[in-house]
Every structure is written in C-alpha cells, then in structure tokens.
C-alpha cells in the first residue's frame, strides 16, 4: 500500500480537528462573553439579587439555557421561582449557616461537550447568587449594627434629658421658700452651658448630611476664644489658648465641632494623668484656623480617625470626629489630623462667614 493513499485521510482528520477546535473556541468565547455579561449585569444592578434574577434569563438564553429556577432563603427572606420550561434539569444545592440556595437550569440540550458547559454555567450562576446573598446579609447586618450604635448615642442623651425634665418638674413644684428658689435657679444657671452643648450635639447629629441652605439660619457672631474657653472650663482641662478670632455661623454647629475634639482630650485625660492642651486661633484672610493639640497618647491610624463608627476606645461609638468633619464640610470648612511630636493634634479651618 502506497503511503500517498492515506494522505487524504490525514487531511480529512486534520480538517475535522480544526473544525472541532474552532467550534469549541467559538462556544467557549460565546459562553465566557455571556458570563462576563452576567457578572457585569449583576454589578450594574448593585449586586441586588432581586433586581438581577429577572434580568438574567435573556442572557442565559444566549448560551442555550432555556430556563432557570431557584429557591433562596436568607435572613427570613425567601426568593423563589418555579421551573416554567419543560426539559431535563441540572441542579445545585448550597446550604450554609446563614442562607440556603437551590438553583437549577434547563439546558436546550446536554449532549457531548455542552453538558460540561452547562455545569460551568450552573456553577457561575450559583457563585453570582451566593455573592449577592452574602453582600445582602453583610450590608443588612452592618446597617443594623450601625443603627443600634447611633441609637445608643442618641438614647444616652435622650434618656438623661427625659430624666432631667422629670426631676425638673418634680422640683419646680417644691420651691417652698426664697432660699430654695434661689438655690434652684443657681443650679439651673450652672448647667445652662451644658444643656446648650447637649442640644447642639443632638441637633447636629440629627441634621448630619443635610443641606440646610435656604432654611431659617440662626447665625451670629461668635468669639472663638470665648467659646473654646467655655468648653475647656466645662471639661476642667489644663489648656493654654493663644490668639483670637470671630466668625459668623450657627453657634450649635461650631460648638459641636469643637466639643467632639475637646471631649476626646477629656476622655484621654481620665486614663492618662497630667494631660495638657494647647489651642492656637489664627485668622488667615477669609478663614480662621484653630489648632488643638494635646500631650496625651498619639493618634493611632490617623487615616481612619474620621471614618464613621471607627473608634480606638473600647465601647466607643466612633461618631464624634466623623460628625465634626461632616458639620465643618457643611460650613465649607474642614478638619484634619496634624502630625504632632507628642500627643494628638487637629486643625479646624472654617470660613469667617458663610456668605462669601
């Protein structure tokens, strides 16, 4: 037998292999493109499971999946879709502590290589759904956690305020003589600044992130030195204040900004003895700059200081500095942590007036 006789066979076999390879390449590219489209769709829909599921079927149809069905349970929520197209199915069951996903696809056919493609499609789809469920669980848990911390922050003051009103109304009805009346008024006078500071703290927190432009403004000229001296006095801190400046702003906002910073020094002074602080007030054109530094422990993780709910204090809520920065931003100002040799230092920059 001549060798030339088997050449056509080799050529034919070679052609078949090339055709098969080209077909497989086409199929893989098509499937991968569809996977990317599915992943992209999920990202565009903010990893929202409920938005993604109804949109996924047209993309699946492109890769020969006629239908898909699912039953997803997480956080007492159930998302379910029955199989609507008849045919053979491939199913996957994921069971974890916090969630359960039952997923099935109805492929157009499952013969040969398509069977393996179908398995990959099922795995990818299950991964996308699992990721969405995990994100959902994490987001909900985080939101609840943050909400409860915020609630604790407001509740502490709200409960004290309610108790104060209860005590006040009790005492008001028992002012039997002039001496008692005088003593009662003195106590109230003594605590007025504290009450105003607490009011400022609650209002600023509730107003956070809100644009108050156009609303009734309670702006007034504020002597910064006087305001800071008052705060320092209330916290009984050893502090040197240098410089002087005035700004026109809503007082409760300014009090809140500085109260949070000075309060941190006060908290530190309870744990670290002998802490002193230095405040420098300067006027730079249309801005005032207030530098507040202390001799306590240095700032750890400076970059995270203004992150909401981040706290280095055990049981700390991590709202104070975030709130200060937020209020400063609404006033077209800013706060930043400064590099400081010993202790912590902050610089607050605020415009002299809000109307420039």
């Amino acid at each position, binding site marked *: 037998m001549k060798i030339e006789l088997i050449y056509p066979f080799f050529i034919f076999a070679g052609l078949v292999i090339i055709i098969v390879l080209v077909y497989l390449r086409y199929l893989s590219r098509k499937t991968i493109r569809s996977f990317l489209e599915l992943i992209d769709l999920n990202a565009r829909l903010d990893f929202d499971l409920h938005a993604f599921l109804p949109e996924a079927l047209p993309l699946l149809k492109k890769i020969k999946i006629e239908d898909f069905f699912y039953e997803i349970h997480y956080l007492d929520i159930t998302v379910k879709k029955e199989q609507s197209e008849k045919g053979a199915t491939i199913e996957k069951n994921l069971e974890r502590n916090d969630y359960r996903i039952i997923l099935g696809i109805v492929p157009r056919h499952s013969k040969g290589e398509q069977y393996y493609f179908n398995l990959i499609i099922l795995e990818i789809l299950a991964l996308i759904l699992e990721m969405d469920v995990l994100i959902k669980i994490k987001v909900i848990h985080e939101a609840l956690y943050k909400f409860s911390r915020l609630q*604790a*922050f407001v*509740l*502490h003051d709200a*409960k*004290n305020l*309610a*108790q*104060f*009103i*209860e*005590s*006040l109304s*009790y*005492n008001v009805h*028992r002012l039997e003589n002039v001496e008692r009346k005088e*003593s*009662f008024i003195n*106590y*109230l006078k*003594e*605590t007025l600044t*504290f*009450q105003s500071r*607490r009011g400022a703290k609650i209002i600023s927190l509730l107003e956070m992130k809100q644009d108050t432009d156009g609303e009734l403004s309670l702006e007034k000229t504020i002597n910064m030195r006087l305001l800071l001296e008052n705060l320092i006095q209330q916290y009984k801190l050893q502090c040197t204040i240098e410089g002087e400046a005035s700004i026109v702003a809503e007082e409760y906002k300014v009090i809140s900004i500085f109260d949070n910073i000075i309060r941190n020094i*006060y*908290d*530190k002074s*309870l*744990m670290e003895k002998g802490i002193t602080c230095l405040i420098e007030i300067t006027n730079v054109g249309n801005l005032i700059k207030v530098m507040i530094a202390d001799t306590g422990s240095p700032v750890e993780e400076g970059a995270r200081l203004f992150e909401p709910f981040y706290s280095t*204090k*055990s*049981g*700390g*809520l991590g709202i104070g500095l975030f709130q200060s920065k937020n209020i400063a931003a609404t006033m077209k100002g800013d706060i930043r942590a400064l590099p400081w040799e010993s202790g912590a230092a902050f610089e607050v920059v605020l415009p002299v007036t809000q109307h420039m």
Partner: protein
Amino acid sequence: MATILLVEDDIALRKQIRFSLEDNFSVLEAETQKEAVDLLKNNSVDIIILDLGLPPNEDTPEEGLQILEYALKRYNCKMIILTGQRTEGIALEAIKSGAFDYLLKPASMDKILQSVERAHLFKETEDELVKMGVRKISLDFEMGKGLQTWRDEADKNIILRVLKDTDFNVSQSAKLLGVKRESLYYFLKKFGLKRDHED
C-alpha cells in the same frame, strides 16, 4: 444626716437630683469613676446613686460596674443604680454584685426618692443591728455545688464583713468572731483576703 454620693456625668440632671435630696441628706457629687472613688475614700457614704454609663465609656456600663464592685467590696453602703443601660445582663450583674435597687431612666422622682428612703431605712437598721453585735451578710448560691462551697462562701463573707468593720485589725476581728488569731490568719490565707492597698 445620712450622706448620699451621687455619681452622674450629666451635670444638669445631677444638680436636679441633688436639689430634691439635699433637704434631707448631705449630698456629694462625682462625675467620673476617679472622683467617686476619691470621695468614697475620704467620706463616710451611706447611699450611692450610681449611673453606670460614665466617661470615658459612657455608652457601656463598665465604669459604673467597676465603682459598684469597688464600693460594695470595701464599704457598708447601699447602692441604687439609676441608669439608661437597659439590658437584663447588666441588671443581673449589678444585683448579683449587691446593688440595692436598679432603676431605669427616666424614672419618676417619687420612685427614686422612695428607693432612697428604703435604702436609708435598711442602712440605719443594719447599723443598729451592728451595734447590737448582729451582722447581716448576703450570699449568692449556685445550686448543686455541694454544702462545703456554701459554707466557705458564708465564712468568707462573715470574715470579710468583720475585717472591714475593724479596718482589718486581725486581733479585734478575731475577738469579734470568737476565734483565735491563728485561725483567722488561716482563713485570710485560705480565702486570699487582703487589705485594699495590698491588692
């Protein structure tokens, strides 16, 4: 006049409560753990009204519970918790540590004053009994641990109470307890009882 120590970080509220008490009691004020401890060391306090959430951790009960433990371990006073910290665990811990009452903010002033009056009455009666040679002790028993554990706990509490009354004078305590000094030393070692500054 009985002395009340008011431990509360909210100055406005503290002044109002002070105002309602100062006609009938001598009132001391503290707003931090350190101030409370300093006042306890330098004054004879009969009743403590204690807020649990104090700076620097006013959103947790840690500071208050530390004062509670410190005061009840060393002084014969009645502790009234007045707090906004509403969890069963904290209340349980406070009562287990020996708190006289646990009031949640906002509590009516009548309720607070009634609690103070009751605490005062208990304190006075206990002081009278002490004069008559009777000591009242309270014990927390965990069931199922055997009688020996209970006996040891009772022994420890009685000895600790008498030692506190005599300012850790061992001879005087031994006399009051009706035991030999050597026996009392044995118990001190057994229960690991020390004077405050020896801790």
